[in-house]
């Protein structure tokens, strides 16, 4: 698998993702700056956490104007796998690659803690190494992770089985306990919890490895996605 890890000014989990994919999952991966205009040749694009452009207006609201986002849309439209984590999830919703939006946690505070999750759908490219109903613990670290979509959109998401992870003890007010979901086509996923922070026993948990292993499985033998 060949992965691109996007990096926007203000991203701060880009190096962590690179480490997880390269050093732990042992896959090819490179950092790709937000000024890049093509993503041809990658199997997977990872949109990392952090505070792109400071997240000053709304999280992800400025990042969507970066040049690489046009390339990302093409990449996704061609069926390439895209995973946005935390700020990456926020960017993908702002860019319209995923439905809904993320607003302030109901506590109005940032929260960093290990979060119990339930695998809602284990048939996606991002979760095929888990089993449905499996309990996981992945770290969260966000202030704006409260998932919102209007009733109609939410119903469509559920009808289409797009929810991949749900919170077991909703920490932020997300509708339907949504912690991670895909687009309708199933090739783009966003999630607030950080799987890349749970890939080494030394750091406390390896529950996040399944996300990367699932993608390796999904892309095995897959031809690189054309631009």
């Amino acid at each position, binding site marked *: 698998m060949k992965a691109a890890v996007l990096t926007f*000014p203000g991203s*701060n*989990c880009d*190096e962590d993702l690179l480490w997880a994919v390269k050093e732990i999952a042992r896959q090819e991966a490179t950092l790709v700056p937000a000024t890049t205009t093509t993503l041809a040749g990658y199997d997977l694009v990872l949109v990392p956490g952090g505070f792109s452009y*400071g997240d000053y207006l709304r999280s992800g609201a400025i990042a969507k104007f970066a040049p690489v986002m046009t390339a990302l849309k093409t990449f996704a439209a061609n069926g390439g796998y895209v995973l946005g984590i935390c700020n990456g999830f926020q960017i993908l919703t702002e860019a319209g690659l995923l439905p809904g939006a993320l607003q302030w946690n109901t506590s109005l505070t940032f929260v960093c803690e290990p979060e119990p999750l339930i695998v809602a759908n284990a048939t996606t490219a991002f979760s095929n190494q888990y089993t449905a109903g499996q309990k996981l613990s992945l770290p969260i*670290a966000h202030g704006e992770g409260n998932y919102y979509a209007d009733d109609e959109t939410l119903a469509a998401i559920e009808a289409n089985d797009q929810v991949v992870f749900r919170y077991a003890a909703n920490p932020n007010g997300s509708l339907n306990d949504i912690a991670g979901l895909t687009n309708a086509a199933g090739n783009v996923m966003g999630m607030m919890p950080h799987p890349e922070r749970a890939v080494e026993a*030394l750091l406390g948990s390896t529950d996040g490895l399944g996300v990367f292993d699932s993608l390796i499985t999904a892309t095995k033998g897959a031809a690189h996605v054309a631009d």
Partner: protein
Amino acid sequence: MLQTEPTPEQIREHKPYLQLGLTEAEYDLFTARLGRLPNYTEVGLQSGMWSEHCAYKYSKPILKTFWTKNERVLMGPGEGAGVIRIGEGKAVVFKAESHNHPSAVEPYEGAATGIGGIIRDIFSIGAKPVASLDSLAFGNQFTAHNQNLIEQVVAGIGGYGNAIGIPTVGGEIQFDASYQDNPLVNAMCVGVMDEKDIQRGQAAGVGNAIVYVGAKTGRDGINGASFASAQFSKEEDADRSAVQVGDPFMEKLLTDACLQVTHEHQDALVGMQDMGAAGLVSSSAEMASKAGFGMTLDLDLIPQREPGMTPFEIMLSESQERMLLCVRAGYEQEVLDLFAAYDLDAVVCGRVEPGHQYRLLHHGEVVCDIPVSLLTDDVPTYTTVPQQPARLAHPAPDFTPTITDVGATWRALLALPNIASKRHLFQQYDAQVQTNTVIAPGGDAGVIRVRGTHRALAMTADSNGRLLALDPEIGGAITVAEAARNLVATGAEPLGITDCLNYGDPSKPEVYYELQESAKGIVAATKVFNTPVISGNVSLYNETSGVGIHPTPMIGMVGLIEDLEAITTIAFKEAGDQVYLFGKTGDDYNGSSLQYLQTGAYAGRLTGFDLQTEKQTQDTVLAAIRAHLVTAAHDLADGGLAAALVEMGAANRLGIQGTTALTSAQLFAETQGRFIVTVAPAAVAAFEAQVGAAAAHLGVVTTGAITLQLADATIDTTIAELATIQEEALACQLK
């Protein structure tokens, strides 16, 4: 603006410098050394550079007594931060800084900019910031104002640290009446670097360029509070504010760019320093002075956020997120291009000159022309004749607790704000970004692994104002010992310390006494633990209406773990593990949480502390951890054994069944130098053989029940009950 500035003669006559914090004697001394009357800009520069913050007028004689060097120290106090060798070619860089006053005035931004400032100190040395800690002290009356203060300070620290992507891995939050009007906000940052990349803040080499980088200079934070009264006299200025706002996004870019310069443009870079207190003047003058050169700056070239700024304002602005570099002549463009790629302002604003004159040009005029040493070296230092405060001369009699219902006392103790878990506050900090955090807040010390080595660093920030109030010397030593104890409990060998000296008005003989005595205690302890002071910061005048805070030196300590397998956490791991107590427990209740619970105050002499005994115990515990004999370890601090057992049981909801000769009261004694460890059954024989009589068997870990047979009582409860109290108490009280 300009035209309203007083002339040199008017300054002599009307003494506006008094409002800037200078004394008449200091002005006279400056004038005499200069050989002429200084103009308004020059007096402004003097006021910034001769402030306690920059010149350490009162604290220098004290700081001179600190022990600052051993064979591992690569750079001691004097630069942005200190540096210690950790092996495999790597070094650790750390420093702490106080932002007490700004946080009292504007809690969110005050705390946020405190974090921003200390981070710049770390990367100015060339180190990548890898972890932060924060030491906070607030009043114990949870008024609406105080709650807002607590909430906003925590939000500010998180808001900045989380955004810039540096994990906050430890710290402390204390509540005491002494801090009701003078909260303490101390921040510490730790960086890691290759030994070979160490940078200094120096501007050497005639003709080399002075490069200004980062945020534009605005009228924020100019000369602190005096600016407000001195400058905002006109009507239309009422809508002005001198509050400094942090911009973590800018700082993230600045950090990355400056580190890239240090790593990839070593030929070009002569020196680098951050702009902290007294902004542009302190950074530039210090860089010239350290290198023994002169300097000329053209202020028209300084990026400015507002029109019409005077030289005084430009030089003394404390706008955040700015750095000053000295770049070798001919290499300017490659450095400017690098910053341009990060979308950062960078300009050549001056040159290194032969000689020692510090010259500033503004609109084509020379607005300052003085020997640089006048700003950096010729500052008088002051000592006050110390006098022992009356309360220390006549300590209260020793406190003897009476305990009728040990279970009830235990529960009440756990709900005290100082004992209760601070989790709902520190969980607002990202503790894991950079994915190196082995121990996040909640343990005895934060631990991060060092990429590219087989090592880890442990770090802690501790202060004990209430103990220093009872005995500054012993309290100072205890604070260092406690910090070392926290590190040892994780398996680390203490390396060195940074400090923030938070005190009241040093011109008061009693305050000076506290300063001097506590320094004695700190110095003695640092020698015993082999932890030289490599950096630090002084915050004096923490007083309101003439009443000062407890003498509160904050000790930030960093330790080294050479074996990733030997990192030990506080959590009980498995039922059946054996529990041991290191250190003798005495009837030490003066200054304890039990005393506070029962009397509402801390009083009496400090008893039961001996540096050598403490050191021996720490060495024994560390050796046992390094021998892989220990499954959990925790030091005993506030709340003694009673608090420690709950803290160890909480995470996995495991209890203890034990029998001990200790009394109910001794369960709460706060005798120093103690640890609890657990040992897996298979390792018991080896453990007992290695530690001998240093540890006493206390009991065995259970699946949740807590059954303790004390000398005078029996306790039968559960970890679930006790841990819940400790976990929920503070959040309830802060609602």
